[in-house]
């Protein structure tokens, strides 16, 4: 790794990135970069593991990240996901924080039904189902979440519906979200988060990044997460400007609709 670990790390965290080759075409590796860098800046050591199809998933994973890919990429990881699915489900039940973006979010749900009616089974860790669409949902997104405003960029044709007791990750302020209809975005169960947000999701949303880190560290160290003071000025500015921009667009659109009436 590029950055030196702190002199005496408060603890060591094993960070696993699932399928960096097949499922990371939209900059989602940035999430891993942000988690690893923030862990170090908070004074923790990081063991970064790239998990490729056909390998054994490390049972001692403390934090698991996955990204979005193309259909060809999803097909390439299906068999491995089936092999490692039970371990991932066990880790999730045990409170290991996970962040699954776009394609991996869909695969963490019950199933994905393609446009031509084929049903691909998922891991069922999140209580969501996804249906392929001819329409693509593409554009910048702003959400309200338990971590405050969250911004990102979505690009998906899958339309996701939450099960009856499934909590969304956030409420859509601007953008499409899970399906463009019900105002929900993503899903969260315990410390497992699924979302369509690229951007990538974490850099401009440090409160969300630190929540994942806290969940990982709290499981490992009895003292719990002891954060350092990090300077997040750039992240806060980037997020606030994007929220202002997107809500201004929405207000303008609303005014135009009202005027047309």
């Amino acid at each position, binding site marked *: 790794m590029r950055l030196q670990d702190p002199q005496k790390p408060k603890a060591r965290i094993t960070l696993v990135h699932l399928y960096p080759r097949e499922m990371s075409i939209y*900059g989602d590796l*940035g999430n891993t970069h942000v988690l690893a860098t923030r862990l170090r800046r908070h004074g923790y050591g990081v063991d970064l593991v790239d998990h490729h199809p056909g390998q054994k998933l490390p049972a001692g994973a403390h934090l698991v990240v996955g990204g979005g890919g*193309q259909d*060809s*990429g999803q097909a390439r990881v299906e068999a491995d996901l089936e092999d490692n699915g039970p371990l991932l489900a066990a880790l999730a039940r045990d409170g290991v924080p996970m962040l699954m973006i776009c394609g991996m979010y869909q695969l963490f749900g019950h199933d994905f039904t393609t446009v031509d009616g084929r049903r691909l089974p998922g891991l069922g860790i999140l209580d969501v189902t996804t249906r392929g669409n001819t329409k693509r949902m593409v554009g910048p997104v702003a959400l309200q979440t338990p971590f405050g405003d969250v911004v990102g960029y979505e690009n998906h044709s899958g339309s996701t519906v939450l099960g009856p007791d499934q909590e969304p990750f956030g409420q859509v302020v601007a953008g499409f979200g899970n399906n463009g209809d019900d105002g929900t975005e993503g899903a969260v169960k315990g410390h497992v988060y699924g979302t369509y947000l690229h*951007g990538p999701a974490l*850099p*401009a949303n440090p409160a969300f990044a630190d929540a994942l880190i806290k969940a990982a560290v709290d499981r490992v160290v009895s003292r719990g997460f002891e954060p350092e003071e990090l300077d997040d000025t*750039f992240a806060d500015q*980037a997020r606030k400007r994007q929220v202002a921009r997107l809500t201004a667009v929405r207000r303008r659109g609303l005014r135009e609709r009202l005027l047309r009436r």
Partner: protein
Amino acid sequence: MAAGRIARSAARRRGGGSALPGLVAERVDPDILTHALAGVPQVVVVTGTNGKTTTTKMLVALLRAHGREVFTNPTGSNFTRGVISAMLPALDRQGRMHADLAVLELDEAHALHFVKKVAPTHALLLNVARDQLDRFAEIDHTARLLHSLAAATTQGVVLNRDDPFVARIADDPDVPPARYFGLDESVLERLAELQEADVRFEDEAPTPGLGAQDVLLRPRDEREFELVLGDGSASGPIVLRQRGLAAMINATAAVSTARLLLGEAFDPAVAGAALREVAPPFGRGEVVDAGGRPLELVLVKNPAGFTVALGTYGATPVTTMVAINDRDADGRDVSWLYDVSFASLRENGVALTSGIRAYDMALRLRYDDVEVGGVEPDLAVALDRLLADHPDRPLRVFCTYTAMMTLRRILADRYTLPEFGEDAPA
């Protein structure tokens, strides 16, 4: 035809709008392209994600240096309507073009629109990389677009041997005979910074065998290189005015295509002399004289392009600004900035970030431990600060497309600059 001409002069008076006359002409005569190009013996399409503009320019220079009369579309008009607009003044009264060759730079999606009207005799397919995923959705899709273009081509294609998305296209029996350009083994280790992984197939794509007419690049430094033929013979050295591996690969692709088009008439000495004279297209390493100080504009639009640009320029001691917009022409999704390593900027830092996503860029740099001197989203203010606060060193601005257009307009108001679409003075 007349309607197109009138629209063209109207667009000129308005100042800009290169696609409008083409739009009008296409409405009046939907088959204008078919008709105009019917008498041109060779119609060559150049497409791919990165390097279209530079490569087209080099290919045209090579052909003209061999005495050929060539029609080409000017920089930045790489949609079919732009091509028609550029064509209008060159047509005779019957609406026909008189030239030995037409060499057309086309956007990947528009190349397919074009072949519905005109079957190209030849195609040069450069590469497939992630670029504006919000428009093309997936790189696999872009690869399919290029494949369809190759299948619609009648006489011959020139393919990138090192790009599995492109090299595989030759496997299709519907595609005419292929020649290849690529990297000599002495630089193969730099492929990783250029190439996307093709995960559509289980097996790694085998690099195609080398034909006697295929052309490989063997660099000597950042702008001087030799070309090695499949039969082992080498020519050169050739020196470019534009620096970097990307420009040298573009030159290799252009030479490979010129050899195919010219056959026996191709002369390596003429080719070398022609390439030496090709000025960088604007914004592709173009150097502006900013009141006696060189200011270099480097267009960045996707991970492969930015990575190669940093590899070329990153470590030289200049004052650097990065300007990122997210309008349609830039790509609205800025996620790709996290697929570029900025480590090479660590030593000198970045003086300023600017553009609509200035803070996102500053944040990105901080995650690679690159010092950021300041953030100023307003491009005009940022440029003023850059010039005022850093009087000693040469300046370099990495910028996305619309940020570059704005900066260039501001610079043009203050200093002498060539017009959009024209060449920088020697």
